[in-house]
């Protein structure tokens, strides 16, 4: 049986990365279909629990993206968020989930091309590792 395609959960902020993904779609940039997007109001809303929950439920990778620092729609949400994500990344790696399976980055609404690049790179990295099997989380 062929390996199943990898499943990736993307958690994106409404104002930048979701719009950025939209821009990528409108611009007809080719991107892998493995990413399912969850739209949240702001990266400041994202609890590290979301990423862990996605892994628990069987996601092979989690991609978090929002406005560039300084561009937050709510002025400062992503300043708080980046501290949380940094810890989350380290703790997720501590659990034995390879670094390649968790990525957080900034993509603005106009950066359709950057979104394509981020998704393509991330999916390629996760595909290299393959689907997660027999995992503790």
């Amino acid at each position: 049986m062929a390996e199943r395609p990898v499943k990736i959960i993307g958690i994106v902020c409404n104002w930048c990365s979701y719009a950025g993904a939209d821009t990528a779609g409108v611009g007809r940039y080719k991107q892998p279909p493995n990413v399912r997007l969850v739209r949240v109001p702001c990266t400041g809303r994202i609890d590290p629990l979301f990423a862990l929950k996605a892994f628990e439920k069987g996601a092979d990778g989690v991609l978090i993206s929002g406005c560039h620092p300084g561009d937050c729609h709510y002025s400062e949400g992503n300043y708080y968020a980046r501290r949380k994500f940094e810890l989350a990344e380290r703790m997720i790696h501590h659990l034995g989930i390879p670094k390649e399976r968790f990525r957080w980055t900034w993509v603005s609404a106009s950066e359709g091309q950057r979104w394509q690049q981020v998704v393509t790179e991330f999916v390629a990295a996760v595909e290299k590792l393959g689907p997660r099997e027999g995992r503790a989380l």
Partner: protein
Amino acid sequence: MSRQDHIREFAAQALSEGRVDYFIGWKEGFNPSEVIPAFVKEVAQVDQLLWNPLCHHNLVTFLKRNMPDPPEAKIGVCVKGCDSRTLVALLQEQLVDRERLYVVGVPCDGIMDRRRLEKEFAEEIVDIAFSEKGQVVVTTRSGEKREFDQQAVLLDMCTRCRYPNPLYADDMAGPAVPEPDREESQPDWSDLADYEALSDDGKQELLARIYATCVRCFACINVCPVCVCWDRCVNRSRQPELVSQKVETKSNLLFQMVHMFHVAGRCPSCGACDRACPVEIPLYLLHRKMNKELYDMFGFEPGTKLDEKPVFQVFNLADQFGD
């Protein structure tokens, strides 16, 4: 005067002057290797208070939001070095009312690992005696006597302690104990080295084995002094059900990670959760690691400065995280 006498004196004074409604300390437990929290309401009862290297309970737990009974009670409480850090962490976020507290700080020489001591003997321990010189004499049911050096049977985290003296106290029970030079020395994280040396798959395997035994009794969360939203805990919420109520490896680990993330920046690794766990899950693997990373990221040690805000409640434009 011993520290125990100091504690009794402070408690008696505070109670007789009406400065506190009750005083929380430690008293003799139901078996000789265990000490339990004591709630002293009258001066006549202060003689039950004691201090010895078995007093591992972090009494700050009883000050948590909604916990004091009645809620407006004035409380006296004993804190060790690590306990005082949890108290400072709560004070930093105004989670306890400083005006209603009377804090007696107890400089601490390290707490003994009761479980390790019990495992040393095949039989039940009937008596533990402490000498002034830091020796411990343990007697078992059949009369076997063995002497230990207190330093040799300490809790693992006490051997790495950087704050043996309380950081916040109204009165100190006795002179301070020698401290490591914190300017010079870095925290010692060597207890994590074995785990961190494992491969990713090795870590997952080990965690799967460890967390298969969790019975989700919530002892770690109930006993945690800095886990404060316990009446609205996402771990207990059924609607929406964010963390499954099912007791199985994956949910157990997720459950524990939720706890860790929620106390990040507040948890000083006092180890109360490790000691409360009935199946002896090594929770320090998570909370010590979290504190290691916080130290690495911000040079931050939770609960050490009263006027400081926890790192996740503030931000700095100059932070260099992410790409």
